[in-house]
């Protein structure tokens, strides 16, 4: 864990919960807790003090024994069940396990009710136990007593039925070993590794309570070995994606939550590419980037950069399931990280400008290998987009055009093939003028291609960026002219305004 100043803080894992470094952590946030799944062997919470605890303690394993003892004022037939609880420093219960096995009934007459054989939790995060008891002859449990610590195995008193807690015992349950998690409508929603075609949801505002009945099938059962591949919690609907089908959950509570098919031949390829910005979701599927907003679902890469995602020319599509993305909320950009064609390492990213609907990239860095991307807030509550690396560092943007301390940023822009709207006519392209922002130093390299669409690169031309305008050499003869602008010097800004090239038509050949 890192604090807002970038100092590392060790988070101690709860008892018997381990981290698999090969799996990506997935998070949801509720009640000032970060809930983490997938990379940990059980779901955990991390609070604002950096303390990690199991999302839900394991329930008691022993059947309590119930009997009467001594003399008292209680008479009747009773049942008892035990749970384990976790309290925070203020004494709030922040997690409660499912109920352990219910005791056999016991009938007593003017005695104290004694429960023994209570289980002791092996988890150090557990701070105590709760005991629930029925009223005489009843089946509904009520809170009876609370025990501190993990050492008590017996309890007794003769609390009357009328003095039990006023409300019935809560509905509790254990979560699955989730690999997906999302917060929606005040509940957590998760998909378990052993139950990949079903989605579970917690009780409202109780992230630790997962009754087994809170589960819905996301069809089709057993269709593939990936199951549910992503969750998209928008304001009014929860999107659930499989590889090739997209569902939404409708409803407001457990009585009317329904999984409804939303689209066929559409899904979610990687949960890590799902980003939601101003209630519009963006994510990667097999053939492009999709957007789900008030106007429905659209493929925003179609018509511009579909070839990035539908061919093998630019990116390795086999690695799409490992892709990840982030939103820059200040610049309103969606950035998705992919592997270059022929490679398996995620080392490229492209970005979509939400304001202008334009695409940029592919970008790369020669300073580190990116491995993750997300957004956080610094100590002044300013949003900071972050990129994680294989070296254990997080990277943030800086105005200086250098990656790391000295690595140049390789800038390369390729224009269209200019043809003067007469692609069949040979032309003589004259002296090019370049217009750019005046910089303190630096040279921009221009490589022309003059000829047909298969023209070779000509000799490079240098433009001094200390000049706002520079007239350069004649470019030559051909039907087309294409220019590539490059720059790769650390610490130098580039801002290119445009260019002019006069030409004369020579005729057909």
């Amino acid at each position: 864990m890192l604090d807002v100043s970038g100092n590392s803080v060790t988070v101690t894992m709860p008892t018997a919960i381990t981290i698999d470094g090969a799996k990506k952590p997935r998070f949801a946030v509720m009640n000032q807790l970060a809930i983490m799944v997938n990379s940990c062997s059980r779901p955990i919470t991390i609070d604002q003090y950096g303390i990690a605890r199991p999302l839900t303690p394991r329930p008691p394993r022993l059947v309590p024994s119930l009997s009467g003892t001594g003399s008292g004022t209680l008479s009747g037939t009773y049942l008892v069940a035990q749970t384990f609880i976790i309290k925070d420093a203020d004494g709030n219960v922040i997690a409660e396990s499912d109920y352990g096995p219910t005791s056999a009934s016991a009938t007593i007459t003017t005695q104290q009710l004694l429960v023994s054989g209570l289980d002791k939790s092996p988890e150090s995060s557990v701070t105590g136990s709760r005991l629930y008891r029925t009223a005489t002859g009843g089946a509904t449990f009520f809170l009876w007593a609370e025990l501190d610590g993990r050492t008590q195995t017996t309890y007794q008193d003769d609390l009357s039925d009328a003095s039990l807690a006023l409300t019935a015992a809560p509905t509790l349950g254990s979560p699955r070993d989730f690999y997906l998690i999302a917060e929606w409508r005040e509940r957590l929603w998760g998909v378990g590794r052993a139950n990949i075609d079903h989605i579970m949801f917690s009780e409202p505002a109780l992230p630790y309570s997962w009754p087994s009945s809170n589960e819905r099938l996301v069809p089709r059962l057993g269709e593939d070995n990936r199951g549910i591949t992503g969750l998209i919690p928008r304001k009014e609907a929860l999107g659930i994606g499989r590889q090739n089908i997209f569902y939404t959950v409708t409803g407001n509570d457990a009585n009317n939550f329904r999984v409804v098919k939303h689209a066929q031949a559409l899904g979610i390829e990687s949960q890590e590419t799902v980003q939601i910005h101003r209630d519009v979701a963006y994510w990667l599927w097999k053939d492009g980037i999709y957007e789900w907003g008030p106007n429905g679902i659209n493929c925003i890469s179609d018509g511009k950069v579909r070839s990035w995602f539908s061919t093998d020319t630019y990116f390795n599509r086999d690695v799409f399931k490992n892709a990840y993305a982030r939103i820059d909320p200040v610049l309103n950009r969606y950035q998705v990280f992919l592997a270059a064609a022929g490679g398996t390492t995620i080392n490229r990213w492209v970005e979509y400008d939400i304001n202008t609907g334009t695409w940029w990239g592919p970008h790369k860095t020669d300073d580190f290998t990116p491995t993750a991307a997300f957004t956080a807030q610094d100590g002044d509550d300013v949003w900071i987009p972050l990129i994680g690396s294989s070296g254990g560092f997080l990277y943030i943007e800086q105005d200086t055009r250098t990656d790391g301390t000295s690595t140049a940023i390789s800038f390369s822009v390729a224009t269209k093939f200019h043809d003067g709207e007469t692609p069949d006519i040979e032309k003589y392209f004259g002296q090019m003028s370049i217009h750019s922002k005046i910089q303190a130093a630096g040279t921009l390299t221009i490589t022309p291609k003059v000829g047909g669409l298969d023209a070779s690169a000509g000799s490079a031309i240098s433009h001094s960026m200390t000049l706002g305008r520079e007239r350069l050499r004649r470019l030559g003869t051909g039907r087309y002219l294409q220019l590539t602008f490059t720059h790769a010097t650390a610490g130098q800004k580039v801002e290119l305004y445009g260019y002019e090239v006069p030409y004369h038509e020579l005729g057909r050949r």
Partner: protein
Amino acid sequence: MGGQINNYSLGRAGVNVDKSAVHLNDDELTSAQNATRDPHGHDGGLVNRKGLTKFNATGLGASINGGTGINLVNRNSTLIGLAGGAVETLLFSGATALGNGAADTPAWFQTTNQGGTVTQPATTLIANPRGRFVTRMGTNTENYFAGRLCAVWNNRVYYVGQHTEDSEEPVIRVFDGVDDYEFVRIPYNPDVGASTFANCVSNVITANGKIYFTTLDKDDSPMKGRVFQLDPKTGVLTPLGATFPDDQLPYALAWAYGQLFVSTVTCATGIHAYDAAGRVYRIRPGIDSAFTLDTTWTDETQSHCAVDMISYGGRLYAALNAEASAVADGDIYVRDSAGAWTESLDGSFNAAGYAGFWSLAIFGGNLYASQKTAGVSSAFTLHKFDGSTWSTVYTHGSTFATAAPYLFATQGYIYAVVPNIFSVSTPVVLRSADGTTWTDISANFPSPLICGGFAALYL
């Protein structure tokens, strides 16, 4: 024919790889590696992207596979306390009128990171008079100690503020490290009379997500007191149960077995009298409407009262002290889940004066208790319980103490504090990181020091 290529809309349409080479527009690019339009909304030119620099100076030693941002509290907790005042402030002064601490000018002070050295005087956060933190039990002037007069909830300190006795209602204030303000006032006790203000707050704890405190409402016979629950989210104040029986002043508080336990001091003949055994009551807030008597100290523990209680290892422990007597001594008692109280640690009997245990704290998985040796100017001892065995970990033999050491545990240290009381002109502050080796860090603290006013906040 001739012509001119004028391309000043270069890149305005971003990248397009879905058109053939002859169908692209001038403002479209076939690639834009590390390039973008001016990101600040200007219709500027084509720029190279911003650089990427390390956020953390030290690598985490492994690949970062994912993350999220949550607002974290600064994990370096800071110890804060209340210090200052030329004259100690008393809650009880026997036959004399109760002092109002008007001469005091206490202020919050702040120490450095809990894990680092405590420095003096540290930052004075608030300069205005605030606190009233000292009380006394018994007639002997050596028997001063402080109740727990502040409690931390959600990184805020809720503490007993200063008020003018008999002229205004006692007050609970809240301090978050920046702002210090009045939170709630304690109303009069109808069993005393509408024209009589409650006297003071005796003890404050945080438990069950709430704040609980005891009050002294009438300081002459028959004396009366109450217990309140304060919801720190809303400021709603709820009296728990009825006024305690006459002369049974509710004092120490603890949460155990899902219930609030309250100890009482018997003061039939005087506020500091101790003239009968104290008691322990319990209640389930929100469920029970009345307190249930849990135990009355008897026999050997005559004239005892529990001045501190704490839940440890699933059981409730009580620190008892005693008025000097031929048969009385102070002990540590423990209550099991069946409700039986037994002696856990026998205090040494000393007929010369007061003896007993005063303060309890849990640190490093162990229970600690402070014991004041009898005598006007005498030592104090610290004991440790590991769940099965008690051991003495520290004896302070200097001639000084008229006040009992108050124990306070934080994230990394346990403190034993003796404040300025009467003849004690210099506070004593001991600190330990392991509960065994204690270091005197008194010189680091401002003087005079008001005990009972310590809290650890994440600032």
